[in-house]
């Protein structure tokens, strides 16, 4: 549904995005993570035909963003960084306007459905200028979906939303995925990205890594098992553990150790058997959970970027 090859965009000497290769399948939710200024918004603008690439090419819904940007825009819906609604118009007027511009047939029931879904129906006749930030965000999401786009680009969809509204948005994203819509989600909310995305791309002007959240973690850290014991392990036990097949490293701790292994199901039973054979009193053996945040920060630090490095 989305195919980008060597996609890049420069603004004078400034390289916003370079050598971006990306494939997103129909019905996939793709999370785009990156620090401020990493080129997330530019990437979304490139893929929605809002700005033209200075190198490479991209196709969205089978249409070239270079040759047919206007047609691309009929196939995509975008939630921009700011809601961008007309403050003097009410919620209904805002959505009706966009329904007309997107040539939505029989828009009224759709508008009503989205307004009810987001709890805005009762306030449909109030000027949007009087809405809270969260209400505007919900209305802007409704606007992005009104014309049933094949590809939806959501830039920080749950920012400014309360937990309940965030949940509504997440449920909506899941429904859209189930309905075969392709979604590109640009976010700083790593928990949300992990929960919603089938795959995640870490962007810092180019895509550093693309994979499922789980695979990203594994790629970066392998499996780390924490072993808690009643007392510190002696040198012989540590050596015995290091000698086990599948064990990559053993780091002693005050009471126990941390063991990096290749495969949990194969290596953990051997680990426990070795400790039991040496009469080590085991309190707990557990795989260490690495959050996506660890992965993300580590990837950026390896590249030498700080999550807040760019203004």
């Amino acid at each position, binding site marked *: 549904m989305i195919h980008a090859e060597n996609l890049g965009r420069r603004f004078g000497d400034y390289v916003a995005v370079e050598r971006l290769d990306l494939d997103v399948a129909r019905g996939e939710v793709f999370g785009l993570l990156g620090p401020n200024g990493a080129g997330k918004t*530019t990437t979304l603008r490139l893929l929605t035909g*809002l*700005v033209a690439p200075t190198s490479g090419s991209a196709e969205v819904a089978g249409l070239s963003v270079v040759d047919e940007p206007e047609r691309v825009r*009929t196939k995509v819906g975008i939630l921009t960084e700011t809601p*961008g609604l*007309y*403050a003097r118009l009410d919620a209904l007027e805002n959505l009706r306007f966009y329904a007309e*511009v997107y040539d939505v047939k029989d828009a009224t029931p759709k508008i009503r459905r989205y307004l009810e879904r987001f709890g805005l129906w009762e306030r449909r006749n109030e000027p949007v200028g009087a809405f809270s930030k969260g209400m505007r965000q919900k209305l802007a999401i409704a*606007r992005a979906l009104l014309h049933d786009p094949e590809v939806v680009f959501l830039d920080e969809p749950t920012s400014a939303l309360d937990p309940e509204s965030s949940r509504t948005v997440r449920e909506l994203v899941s429904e859209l995925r189930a309905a075969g819509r392709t979604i590109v989600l640009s976010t700083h909310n790593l928990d949300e990205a992990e929960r919603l995305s089938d795959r995640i791309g870490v962007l810092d002007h180019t895509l550093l890594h693309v994979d499922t959240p789980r695979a990203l973690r594994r790629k970066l850290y392998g499996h780390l098992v924490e072993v808690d014991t009643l007392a510190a392990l002696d040198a012989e036990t540590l050596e015995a553990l290091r000698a086990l097949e599948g064990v990559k490293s053993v780091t002693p701790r005050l009471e126990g150790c941390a063991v990096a292994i290749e495969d949990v199901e194969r290596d953990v039973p051997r680990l426990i058997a070795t400790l039991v054979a040496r009469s080590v009193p085991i309190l707990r053996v557990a795989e260490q959970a690495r959050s996506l945040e660890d992965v993300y920060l580590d990837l950026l630090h390896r590249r030498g970027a700080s999550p807040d490095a760019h203004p």
Partner: protein
Amino acid sequence: MNSRHIRAVMRREWTELVRTRTLLATLAFVPLALVAISIGVEWSLSRLPDSAFDLGTGEVMVPGLLVRYGNLGVRYSVYALLNEQSLALLLIVAAALPSSVASHAIVGEKVERTLEPLLATPISTRDLLLAKCVIAVLPSLALTWLSYLATLLGLSLFAPASVIAVAMRLEWWLAYFVLAPLLAMASSLAAAIASSRVSDPRTAQGLTSFLLIPLVGTGISAMTGFTSIDLGWVAIATLSLVALDLALLWLATRLFRRETILTRWR
């Protein structure tokens, strides 16, 4: 050209405009003031004794006046002259007012951060600009036409039908109902060009004022005697303005840089 898109933008722009009362009040102020001044001048003239219009008091201008207005006599020729000058000024208002609305057309949306979602829609640049410019023109034209009628009504209080007939010559009707819309559209498009090339509304307005100088100059020249207004002149002016409007629409579309507007303006 997508008429549905144009209508949608026009409807939205109009709704927003009528809800911006301060802007409407500001727009109405200048033409209303001109009408009041025009009527005030006619009223002042009506209070002058006939002796003030003796041939001897205005020997330089009187022969010219009598030639221009035929058998109206000196007093009513003066009425007619001053009234025509007011009508000419009102035409300049028709050209100037739309620019104050249109200069906000693009940069205003950028400032209010509504531009990116709008540009992300399939609407074409030409349809967007055309719709915005038409809406900028409508209130100004309505005010100009109302002011024209008000001036005629005011004149009818102090002048005979023969003087009013001068202000209702076919040339004036054509000037108000054919030239004024074309002139207003030209100024609106010029303002839209300025609005899409600068990054804040004040600069857009300043630049627009500069762009209006040739239009206003032509209007003043035409309406104050340097160029005599007749049917031939109106026909030439009409054709010229149609060509100018089309050229400005083409230019506005060409000069509109979606990317620059989205990525460079802050």
